């Protein structure tokens, strides 16, 4: 910690069997003085143990619920603890800790309630072509459904103000939550800003990420949600 006062910026790391990378990620986050909250989404490996040992706050889902549910749990808890800013940060090591400060600076500078990381505002050398095409398709889908003009709709690195975090409903437990967050942002009418961030693709992060086939399931999830509300 840099000061005696605990930071009011909470970094939420949803983690499902991320024992391989979690220790390094948490080490870097704590090094910057953030409040770190790990949501262990029913992992069967050492995820919780590592997080506790690193001194993070840890909430463990008794069963695996999905990343969207983990984010919701984290946001709910962080807001209850008085968080002024909430950052979502993937535990697989694909984000850079230094980018968090840029997102928060953007919130302040632009008077925005949502700062969304984008890997397409600057050049990435490590992105596979199929992944790039998939993300492009998601961008078009977002423009069509929410009207938000974003360059990257599925980036796990985001920062919200307290007011922003409170409007997110996150009823989609699984991967469709990324689209749902955007829909909520559009609905709230609050200011949002995109910030260039770097995503490091490793074999590990790719193996944990979404596959092209998941896209269909996401569409189905979103469709079903419209039907029954």
């Amino acid at each position, binding site marked *: 910690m840099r000061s*005696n*006062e*605990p930071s009011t910026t909470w970094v939420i790391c949803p983690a499902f069997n991320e024992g391989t990378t979690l220790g390094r990620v948490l080490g870097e986050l704590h090094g910057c003085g953030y*409040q770190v909250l790990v*949501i262990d989404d029913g992992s069967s490996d050492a995820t*919780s*143990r590592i997080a*506790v040992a690193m*001194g*993070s*706050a*840890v*909430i*463990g*889902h*008794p*069963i695996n*619920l999905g990343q969207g*549910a983990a984010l*919701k*749990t984290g946001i*709910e*808890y962080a807001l209850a*603890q*008085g968080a002024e800013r909430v950052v979502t940060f993937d535990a697989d090591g694909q984000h850079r800790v230094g980018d968090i400060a840029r997102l928060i600076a953007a919130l302040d500078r632009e008077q925005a309630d949502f700062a969304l990381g984008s890997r397409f505002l600057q050049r990435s050398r490590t992105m596979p072509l199929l992944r790039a095409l998939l993300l492009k398709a998601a961008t078009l889908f977002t423009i069509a459904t929410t009207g938000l003009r974003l360059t990257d709709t599925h980036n796990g690195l985001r920062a919200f103000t307290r007011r922003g975090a409170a409007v997110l409903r996150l*009823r989609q*437990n699984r991967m469709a939550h990324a689209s749902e967050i955007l829909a909520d942002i559009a609905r709230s009418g609050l200011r949002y800003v995109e910030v260039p961030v770097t995503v490091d693709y490793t074999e590990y992060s790719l193996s944990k990420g979404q596959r092209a086939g998941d896209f269909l399931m996401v569409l189905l999830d979103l469709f*079903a*949600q419209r*039907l*029954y509300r």
Partner: protein
Amino acid sequence: MIAQAIFSLLLCGVLLYAWAEYRRSPAVASMSVVVSLAGLIFVWVPSLSTAVAEFVGIGRGVDLILYLWVCISLILLLNLHLKLRTQEESITKLARAIAIANAVVPSETVTALSERPRRRGASSRPAGAHTSKQMDDQIV
């Protein structure tokens, strides 16, 4: 006559089920009533289904019933899917409540954030003991 008797029995069973279901979901119940009544009529007056089929431009009465059945099962499938989703949401809420109640908070954060009394053995356990207890749970 045997087929008619068996199907009539089955369809009457569906009618009973619809009556019992009416409280829980009137839409599904009324739909079941309509379907089973139509079924009863078609079972006892088979020529009627052919007449209706010809009227709407389908060759045979059996085909008409087959097409209708495909539609009905799709609707049932959707209904089931929605039910599962609602159930999933309840489970999520339950799991989240349990998870938050068992949150493991690093001791320095707890003392800084809230002024919990640090009494050993009291019902509100001191933060350090809380953490280590939780840690054991996690390891087990």
